[in-house]
């Protein structure tokens, strides 16, 4: 549609000459580019190395202090790994059976996950597949606020609200009990599960939803038979992250679960988790540099091994269930 004879437009000519002069400006020199590239490269490597250094030094400290713990006469590896009696603060003979703490951690984590995983997943499905956009835009920020509450608040909530409620429902609950702490940890993990699972569901392409609906599937068919399987690896990641968070959670269990290590499955009982014990030790109400002090490092190292195993398991499971679309 161009006109045969172009009438010269003064602003156009001015712009043309200005562009010409701008294009004649000196360009950045290759040497300078290369130098700054090297600088950026080195800076990035340093950042990467720094995180590696921190990890290695933490593991180093854990290892050396754990070794010192096992050099005490009253500590034996067979007692540590083969007993559920964890009585470092009582009189002689002391017993350092790690299972007394591991069972507490597992009980709280189990209760928390029994609460957070199903509820988180169902909420994620509702938000991603069923909720109208307005409701979703309203609920998601609220969930994120829930994730931002300091855990000490959850701890007090467990102690002051959940525990009295549990005691009102059933008289057998101790003032400190695994159920109350487990539920609070579950509430803490719920937004994490929900938010990550929702992201995983949302990342499934719309074309797959349309495909399932186009074949005469209901929304529920599409969700359960196509979307969920396609999002499985992301959902499993969300679950594992929640488990890792629950295992490592400290303030809630320190406040609400109690400080009496015992291997029990009864959620009404007072228990102590690995993290709970470490808080108690680090809080300084024991003589420094005794056996019980160093036992803290052995517990920490055990906890580290458990979370490491979980992470590795997560990678294996994720790889196994990875279903790529595209």
């Amino acid at each position, binding site marked *: 549609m161009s006109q045969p004879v172009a009438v010269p437009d003064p602003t156009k000519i001015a712009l043309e000459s200005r562009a010409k002069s701008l294009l004649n400006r000196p360009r950045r020199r290759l040497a300078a580019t290369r130098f700054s590239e090297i600088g950026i490269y080195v800076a990035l490597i340093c950042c990467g190395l720094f995180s590696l250094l921190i990890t290695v030094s933490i593991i180093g400290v854990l290892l050396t202090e754990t070794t010192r713990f096992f050099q005490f006469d009253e500590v034996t590896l067979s007692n540590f790994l083969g007993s559920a009696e964890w009585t470092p603060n009582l009189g002689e003979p002391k017993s350092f059976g790690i299972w007394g703490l591991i069972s507490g951690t597992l009980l709280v984590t189990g209760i928390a996950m029994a609460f957070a995983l199903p509820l988180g997943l169902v909420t994620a499905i509702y938000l991603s597949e069923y909720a109208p956009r307005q409701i979703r835009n309203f609920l998601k920020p609220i969930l994120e606020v829930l994730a931002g509450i300091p855990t000490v608040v959850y701890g007090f909530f467990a102690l002051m609200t959940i525990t009295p409620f549990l005691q009102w429902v059933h008289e057998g609950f101790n003032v400190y009990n695994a159920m109350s702490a487990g539920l609070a940890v579950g509430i803490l993990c719920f937004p994490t599960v929900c938010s990550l699972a929702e992201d995983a569901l949302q990342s499934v392409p719309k*074309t797959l939803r*349309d495909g399932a609906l186009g074949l005469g599937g209901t929304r529920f068919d599409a969700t359960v038979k196509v979307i969920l399987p396609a999002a499985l690896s992301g959902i499993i990641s969300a679950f594992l992250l929640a488990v890792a968070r629950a295992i490592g959670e400290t303030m809630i269990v320190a406040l609400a679960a109690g400080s009496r290590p015992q291997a029990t499955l009864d959620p009404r009982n007072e228990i102590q988790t690995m993290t709970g014990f470490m808080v108690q030790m680090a809080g300084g109400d024991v003589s420094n540099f005794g056996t019980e002090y160093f036992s803290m490092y052995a517990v920490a190292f055990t906890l580290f091994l458990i979370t490491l195993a979980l992470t590795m398991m997560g990678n294996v499971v994720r790889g196994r269930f990875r279903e790529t679309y595209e």
Partner: protein
Amino acid sequence: MANQSTNAIEASNLNAWYGDFQALNSISLQIPKNEVTAFIGPSGCGKSTLLRWFNRMNDTIHSASATGDLRLGDIDLLSSATDVVDLRRRVGIVFQKANPFPKSIFENVAFGPRLHMKLNKTELQDLVEWALRKAAVWEEVKDRLNAPALGLSGGQQQRLCIARAIATGPEILLMDEPCSALDPASTLAIEDLMDELRSQYTIVIVTHNMQQASRCSDKTAFFFEGKVIEFNSTEKIFTTPNAKQTEDYVRGKFG
């Protein structure tokens, strides 16, 4: 009914909107049974919108709405009381981009039958084989039915999606630019397939490819800015169209 209608779908004075934007403007046309009808026209002219009203895929788009009359036999396609699950079983759709589920080849084709029918294992296997043969992809996949469908080539994936649509036993097949992402050889395979299927199914295809429309279809509708400018036999549209706009478009002067 005394006289069996020869039309699969009948639209009259159909208007459709996305929010405030009117995508279709008083459309009236009849899709003939057991023929291939092509919808052509420039992008954004409403042909996909109309196609997606035929099996209510527009229900997934929040802002979509329509007025007027759109019927499939006795079924009022615009009524909120219409059973869309049964409708979509009867009116299958194949999308622009092949969208196999991240499952095995077998499970993809078995998906629809599993939803709608109770079949035992051998019945299901037979139905899957039949659908894959119909979609001309059986020979290429028969030895790897349990392999992931996403490992197939683009053309094979699209034929798999056609097999998947056929397996629910539809009367009508809607195809929304089914070849736009395929190479010429795969396109040819799909066109041959449509030729095979036309005796048993009513096919409606949206295409941007003029040659494809002229090669494969019996009737062609030319859409422009939400209106059907001309709806006629494909031969007429491509040789002596009535409207100037149609002629310009099929000759490649615009669009």
